């Protein structure tokens, strides 16, 4: 019965959105040119295929292990299942309508229906016409981002959200938050893209991926409430070994995320690759130093957290700053996110279980703003504050942060309120105490005979 409801809800949403966007597409006219076209070159194609695989690796095993190690052992499978299920569900959603809503249409604000069911992306049978291959690479590469972004939010409501509600929420969130923001920034006609009036740099997803998911994660944490016993009983990570392996996989996968966002195997990709690596390294050092000073010793979890914070922060800037500036961004992220995940969270008392907001939200916002400060014309970007002395690019970055956060907050809030009234957000107390592995999925992560 539950599954029927989930299926019906998903299909209804897809149909409603399709109808709505069909009407909209008729108003705005012809389909746009395909975005981010990759030149048909075997080197570029090879590179983009590898990058697509690397980004998929970030969700599972990367994020699955990173988050899985941080929860209690009775909930490890629930976290991994969320990651794996999103790989399936978001991929199909991307093919059916997500890609179209993100990259179709020529409106500055919302995508269109041009590519529904991959229309125009698949070969049409005409011999000698290989143009579709470019679009298909964009489709699959961008699809990996569509998968991991709602996966990041799972860190905020880990250990207590109903699985069926999580599925519906992620699908709707993807279509109503991710796709519009993606369209604004990357579609080519979006109001935050290079053709728009407020061009904000977001090389690989600081705004589209991290701010949108991080801010939504905070809304989720606030609305779903704290875990039972939060603050009263210990909830330490059950296996930091997994978290370390997950971090390492995320770090490697991030090369596909950021360097792949160059769209080709070129100089921009090399710059993004190196800047990404240096920022992650600086993040490790910064968070570890903070712990050394504040707590007397650096922890593995701290080093892992610092690496991810640095990676998040460099993401919007990877193609607009040089690698040495990447170190500054990574270092800044390590310090700022450390305070966000320790002092700020404790002060306000919200249970962002795995620090999705503290690292992705805060790190993403920091990276977006610092991109406006450090961007350099030498790499083809509009010069930032340091290079030009003008704050116009920084202001554009701030506008993109505020707009993305506003959309994410409003839509996430409304979605969760509706889902709370219809499906319920949270598992029953008894189920939460027994753990989500058994109660939501009927299996155990660890069976020792």
């Amino acid at each position, binding site marked *: 019965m539950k599954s029927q409801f989930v299926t019906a809800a998903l299909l209804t949403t897809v149909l409603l959105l399709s109808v709505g966007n069909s009407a909209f597409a008729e108003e705005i006219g012809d389909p746009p040119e395909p975005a981010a076209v990759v030149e048909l070159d075997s080197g570029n194609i090879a590179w983009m295929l590898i990058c697509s695989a690397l980004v998929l690796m970030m969700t599972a095993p990367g994020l699955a292990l990173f988050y899985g190690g941080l929860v209690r052992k009775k909930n490890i499978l629930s976290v991994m299942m969320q990651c794996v299920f999103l790989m399936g569900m978001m991929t199909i959603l991307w093919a059916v309508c997500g890609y179209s809503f993100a990259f179709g249409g020529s409106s500055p604000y919302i995508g269109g229906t041009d590519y529904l069911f991959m229309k125009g992306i698949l070969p049409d049978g005409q011999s000698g016409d290989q143009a579709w291959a470019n679009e298909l690479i964009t489709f699959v590469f961008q699809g990996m981002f569509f998968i991991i972004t709602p996966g990041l939010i799972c860190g905020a409501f880990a250990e207590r959200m109903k699985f069926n509600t999580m599925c519906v929420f992620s699908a709707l969130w993807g279509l109503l938050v991710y796709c519009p923001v993606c369209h604004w920034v990357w579609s080519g006609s979006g109001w935050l893209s290079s053709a728009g009036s407020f061009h904000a740099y977001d090389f690989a997803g600081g705004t589209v991926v991290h701010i949108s998911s991080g801010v939504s994660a905070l809304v989720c944490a606030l609305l779903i409430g704290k875990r039972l016993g939060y603050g009263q009983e210990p909830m*330490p990570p059950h296996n930091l070994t997994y978290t370390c392996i997950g971090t390492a996989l995320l770090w490697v996968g991030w090369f596909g995320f950021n360097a792949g966002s160059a769209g080709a195997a070129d100089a921009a990709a090399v710059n993004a690759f190196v800047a990404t690596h240096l920022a992650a390294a600086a993040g490790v050092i910064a968070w570890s130093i903070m712990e050394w000073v504040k707590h007397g010793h650096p922890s593995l979890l701290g080093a892992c957290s610092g690496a991810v914070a640095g990676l998040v922060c460099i993401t919007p800037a990877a193609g607009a700053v040089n690698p040495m500036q990447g170190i500054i961004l990574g270092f800044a992220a390590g310090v700022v996110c450390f305070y966000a995940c320790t002092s700020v969270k*404790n002060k306000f008392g919200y249970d962002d279980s795995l620090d999705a907001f503290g690292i992705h939200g805060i790190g993403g916002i920091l990276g977006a703003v610092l991109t406006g400060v450090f961007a350099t014309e030498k790499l083809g970007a509009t010069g930032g504050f340091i290079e030009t002395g003008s704050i116009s690019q920084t202001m554009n970055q701030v506008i993109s942060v505020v707009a993305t956060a506003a959309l994410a907050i409003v839509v996430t809030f409304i979605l969760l309120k509706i889902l709370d009234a219809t499906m319920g957000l949270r598992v029953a107390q008894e189920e939460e105490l027994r753990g989500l592995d058994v109660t939501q999925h009927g299996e155990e992560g660890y069976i020792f005979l």
Partner: protein
Amino acid sequence: MKKIEAIIRHFKLEEVKDALTEAGISGMTVSEVKGFGRQKGHKEQYRGAEYTVDFVPKVKMEIVVSDEDAQKAIDAILTTARTGQIGDGKIFISELSEAVRIRTGETGGESL
């Protein structure tokens, strides 16, 4: 017969086992345990959240010996398990009413 239960540090296990073997003790049962005495626990921190862990991991050895061998066994444990620091552990000695070797049905000192 006496039953000797010794709670000792992990890294002392091999040394204590060798000393007991040398003293002619022919068998023992070892298990991983957690507990606390004067050593107390320790604090752990995960992203700013501090947890007090009360129970310290130790090794428990269980040995059953004849009355004559008991003091030798206790001396062997005392000399090899000691570091002089808090947390060296304890030895508990109790009277044992009977022991039976399952394979043969032997009882008392014959079963050891």
